[in-house]
């Protein structure tokens, strides 16, 4: 109750200017099936403010050029903008700029570690610890490493409440553990994981830690140095940036020791017919023409997020979580997965709607029906099959919010849930 009072107070000071924000996102004016779009699929990819879209056009219209070592004006400008984006992202995350490698998405960032570090360092008998809550992108790369090297994968289980079950962490993190690969926030449950405990355990046995930040960094203020992880993978397109951009953030010493991943132009110090010497990181890991417009777009996204303030965004999402949990609780025969409350929850909600015969309305039906009302949600396994099995379902419906969503969007969601049940079950 006190907490609620405090929240209310902060509301007046910190809460977002929703009108201004929705004006910034051109797509939110879009009509779908004759209704104003209600976009509840930001966990898949976020929408982009015009500030981001404009910077991309501006790049192509004014100074597009390959940044690598060009000495003409355009190339100088594009190099500056590209490297400026790196520095800016590093500042946003309080990470060293030479620890930021741009990739095409979060998945590539994780695979980079799997190929350049894990495959080169780990041997039969070593262990990697994943979690049952993780996205396929933070499981498959390790399964592939395991298949190639004999490394064993173990998984942190998930509790009924949708939390990582750390009760047996001592048995899971042992002298054999070389890497803990864990998501910072679940793309399904919205759960914000117990990174502190996990990183501490890993440290105690000398294991490295990779945090999948795809769902964390867009929603929660993150300080890479304070966090103490070795690697942080992020998805630029989920934090208002364009498609085609992600990043691996790493301790520079680690990058220094790692072999390159993709080989090619731009990462060569010297090359003879016999072999090559690499330039220093992060460029060692950016072979080929870089994702220039994408990095510039991401920089504009970071500027936008920072102007609003990650704390304010977090506050806003807590408010949405509070409101949604309260409203969901009123719905009968409704299964929400993950119930840790606003402090441990991003504004991402996965659920199933009972069909009043003991079954559920298939999420694909829910998704299509919601679409007819203008609501964009996602339905399926959300690239988290182990988590689906954990909750004994094949799929879930997911509504995921971001800074441009408001309580009235939650109202529309709740209304749609009722309507969907009526439509499909007839009652």
């Amino acid at each position, binding site marked *: 109750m006190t907490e609620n009072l405090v929240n209310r107070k902060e509301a007046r000071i910190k809460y977002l200017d929703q009108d201004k924000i929705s004006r910034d996102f051109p797509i939110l004016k879009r009509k779908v099936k004759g209704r104003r779009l209600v976009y509840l699929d930001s966990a898949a990819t976020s929408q982009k403010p015009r500030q981001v879209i404009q910077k991309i056009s501006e790049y192509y219209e004014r100074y597009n050029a390959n940044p690598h070592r060009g000495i003409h004006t355009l190339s100088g400008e594009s190099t500056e903008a590209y490297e400026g984006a790196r520095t800016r992202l590093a500042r946003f995350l309080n990470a060293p700029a030479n620890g930021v490698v741009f990739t095409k998405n979060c998945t590539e960032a994780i695979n980079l570690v799997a190929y350049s570090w894990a495959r080169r360092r780990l041997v039969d008998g070593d262990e990697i610890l994943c979690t049952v809550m993780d996205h396929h992108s933070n499981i498959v790369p390790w399964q592939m490493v395991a298949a190639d090297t004999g490394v064993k994968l173990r998984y942190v289980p998930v509790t009924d409440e949708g939390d990582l079950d750390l009760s047996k962490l001592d048995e899971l993190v042992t002298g054999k553990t070389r890497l803990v690969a864990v998501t910072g926030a679940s793309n399904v449950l919205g759960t914000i994981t117990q990174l502190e405990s996990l990183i501490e355990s890993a440290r105690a046995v000398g294991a490295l830690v990779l945090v999948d930040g795809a769902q964390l960094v867009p929603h929660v203020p993150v300080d890479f140095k304070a966090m103490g992880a070795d690697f942080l993978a992020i998805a630029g397109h989920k934090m208002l940036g364009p498609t085609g951009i992600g990043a691996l953030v790493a301790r520079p010493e680690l990058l220094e020791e790692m072999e390159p991943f993709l080989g090619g132009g731009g990462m060569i110090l010297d090359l003879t017919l016999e072999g090559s010497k690499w330039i220093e990181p992060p460029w060692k890991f950016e072979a080929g023409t870089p994702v220039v417009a994408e990095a510039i777009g991401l920089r504009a996204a970071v500027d936008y997020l920072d102007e609003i303030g990650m704390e304010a965004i977090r506050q806003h999402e807590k408010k949405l979580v509070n409101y949604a949990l309260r409203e969901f609780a009123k719905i009968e025969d409704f299964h929400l997965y993950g119930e840790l409350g606003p402090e441990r929850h991003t504004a991402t909600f996965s659920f199933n709607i009972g069909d009043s015969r003991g079954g559920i309305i*298939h999420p694909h039906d829910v998704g*299509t029906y919601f679409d007819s009302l203008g609501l964009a949600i996602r339905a*399926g396994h959300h690239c988290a099959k182990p988590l689906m099995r954990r909750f004994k*379902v*094949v799929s879930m419906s997911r509504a995921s919010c971001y800074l441009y969503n408001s309580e009235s969007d939650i109202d529309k969601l709740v209304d749609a849930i009722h309507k969907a049940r009526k439509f499909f*079950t007839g009652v």
Partner: protein
Amino acid sequence: MEFEDLYQEIILDHYRKPRNICEGDDTGHICVKHENPLCGDELSLHMKMNRNDTIKDICYRARGCSISISSASIMTEAVKGLKKNEAMELIETVRRMMHGEVVGDGLGDIEALQGVAKFPVRVKCALLAWMALKDALQSPYRQR
């Protein structure tokens, strides 16, 4: 993509009151299971054939969306009593209908599946039961 084309009243009716759900255990001589791991649809089809190659009995158990369930319900109703080659022809017609290559006229409830063609992601759901039937008909145990 028109929502109403997809969820026609007939579809919803079959979904809400599915026909030919298997009861009991050993429900047929031919048994085929199909699944679509992408969306979690799962269907097992049980079928008995007459000596003269007609479908004597057919029932199914399914987990899936309204489209896959109603399609299974509609399919089982439509093919009971058909000869193998008639059923195979019908399967092909439905398949082509789903891909927008033909219009299914005079096919009874099957016509209601027509709207699915406009929703490419849902075509697999609608075809699940029909592909299972195709497998069942081609199964070597068919004559038993």
